């Protein structure tokens, strides 16, 4: 552990507010935050949290830096992001391991998360030469009409513990290419990975003589989070978290006419049709439901299976679950580590009690694994008689609900019945069934897949969902437009002054 921390410049006590290499801010009044290893419960290191005073220092730097950053040509901004991607390549192993150490996902997933950071940097470098605006034919003679995309400002990024660094990079790399600066409030359950990333950013910024492009403000939601969402200096807040918090963020930011990108709760299902390749389906279900201990936004939480394959699929799932190696997430071969906090374990156990009260039958797992540590649990499969209230709620834990259907219409109705709309999938070998699922009357989610699962999205597509998932889009495709302001321009190069719609006014 010490070696990882040393490589990443993590000290025993770290300042939690920063704007650059020589701009770590520490207020003696700042409260200590201890980061714990969820596998052992042992403390890793401490952070001095951001206070009102240090928050203002960080925002001041981010706003100031924006004034010059926005005037830096986009391809030049792309070079800074390219160097950030290169630095992340160099630190991939220790940073990925710190992700594992601090929040408990297995090492392969920790490394994969850093790879995602590298990938989005590569994407953003290309994007820096492709911030295209349209040209439109004006209805007035000798007029030119077009649109430009301008940088927006200092952007607030509020991320969650489950992807402690990748979600930041989806926002920060794109925002930087777009000419924005970012202020990052990471989860209080994963502050050290944020400090490590900030050190990497600081070195890259310093190499380019920059400061304040990437900024950090670690602190409680009720302190730093509330300041950010109510701060008119942050024209955009990109928030990843729960629907309940997203509602609060959305209302606060809308009150000041700011913008939000909301990536909120999911309740992702896989429909397994009667003609599905069950072997592929089971492998996918296992990765989707057990990976990251069921703590991904895109984790598979519901299986909607055709009656004709229900028995066989259930047996195969149970068999697969029984072979999951649970334990030290740093160890090769482990497939599931601990839950992030003791509170998360309590939340899971409470949900299972409710599921049982609502007619659910726990057919696999359901127990704490205290021999391994206080935060280890068994991945759990619950057979439900119907889609009861508990199934409509997202529990951030490895609980998989099994439901049955008779025809595709019923499957899609069950699928869309929940309030969330993030990710979805169908396993079928029938083209008509697959296309129905992807059609206007099919899945109502932001992500809909065929013969692959609900999780494991690539950075190239826009990531986000509908309904109570919040409607935001991050990462690839044209999500960059959310980080810029669109300006419509018309230039009259004639010597006349014609009005649109043929209006004559005082002629």
């Amino acid at each position, binding site marked *: 552990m010490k070696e990882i921390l040393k490589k990443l410049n993590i000290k025993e006590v770290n300042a939690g507010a920063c704007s650059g290499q020589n701009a770590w801010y520490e207020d003696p009044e700042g409260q200590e935050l201890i980061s714990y290893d969820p596998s052992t419960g042992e403390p890793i290191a401490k952070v001095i949290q951001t206070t009102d005073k240090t928050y203002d220092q960080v925002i001041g730097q981010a706003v100031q830096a924006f004034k010059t950053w926005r005037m830096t040509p986009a391809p030049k901004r792309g070079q800074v992001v390219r160097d950030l991607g290169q630095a992340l390549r160099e630190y991939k192993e220790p940073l990925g391991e710190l992700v594992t150490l601090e929040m408990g996902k297995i090492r392969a997933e920790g490394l994969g998360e850093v790879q995602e950071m590298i990938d989005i940097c590569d994407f953003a470098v290309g994007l820096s030469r492709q911030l295209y605006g349209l040209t439109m034919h004006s209805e007035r003679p000798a007029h030119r009409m077009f649109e430009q995309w301008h940088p927006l400002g200092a952007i607030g990024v509020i991320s969650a513990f489950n992807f402690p660094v990748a979600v930041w990079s989806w926002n920060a790399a794109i925002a930087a290419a777009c000419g924005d600066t970012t202020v990052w409030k990471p989860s*209080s359950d994963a502050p050290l990975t944020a400090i490590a990333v900030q050190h990497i950013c600081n070195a890259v910024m310093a190499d380019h003589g920059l400061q304040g492009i990437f900024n950090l403000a670690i602190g409680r939601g*009720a302190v730093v989070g509330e300041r950010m969402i109510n701060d008119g200096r942050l024209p955009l807040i990109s928030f990843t978290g729960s629907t309940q918090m997203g509602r609060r963020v959305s209302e606060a930011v809308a009150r000041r006419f700011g913008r939000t990108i909301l990536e909120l709760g999911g309740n992702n299902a896989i429909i397994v049709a009667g003609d599905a390749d069950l072997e592929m389906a089971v492998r996918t279900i296992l990765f989707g439901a057990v990976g990251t201990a069921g703590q991904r*936004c895109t984790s598979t939480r519901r299986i909607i299976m055709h009656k004709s394959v229900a028995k066989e699929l259930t047996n195969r799932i149970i068999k697969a679950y029984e072979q999951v190696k649970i334990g030290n997430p740093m160890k090769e071969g482990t497939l599931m580590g601990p839950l992030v906090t003791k509170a998360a374990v309590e939340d899971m156990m409470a949900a299972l*009690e409710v599921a049982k009260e609502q007619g659910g039958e726990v057919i696999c797992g359901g127990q704490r694994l205290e021999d391994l540590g206080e935060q280890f649990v068994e991945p759990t499969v619950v057979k439900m008689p119907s889609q009861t209230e508990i199934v409509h709620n997202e529990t*951030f834990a490895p609980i998989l609900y099994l439901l049955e259907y008779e025809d595709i219409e019923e499957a899609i109705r069950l699928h869309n019945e929940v309030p969330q709309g993030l990710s979805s999938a169908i396993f079928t070998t029938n083209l008509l069934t697959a296309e129905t699922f992807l059609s206007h009357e099919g899945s109502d989610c932001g992500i809909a897949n065929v013969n692959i699962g609900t999780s494991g999205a690539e950075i190239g597509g826009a990531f986000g969902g509908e309904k109570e998932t919040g409607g935001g889009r991050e990462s690839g495709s044209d999500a960059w437009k959310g980080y810029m302001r669109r300006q419509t321009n018309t230039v009259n190069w004639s010597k006349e002054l014609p009005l649109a719609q043929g209006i004559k006014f005082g002629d």
Partner: protein
Amino acid sequence: MEIDISPDTPIEELVKLYPEAVSFLSRRGVRCIRCGEPLWCTLGELLYEDGIENPNDLIQELKEHIRKRREQAEDSK
């Protein structure tokens, strides 16, 4: 055993210091953590939003529950 919980206790603090509170409150329809993260409000605000009519009574019950859980844990060591 001093259990310091009041309506002014931030949920972020409550779930760290007293994780047992999460299952107790959840079983009464009050969810402190969502998507694995604690809500940003105080316990009093959350109980009000969830329509709990006698928050002080519930907080007393909560404290008693935590006390019992911790005593049981001590006994089992």
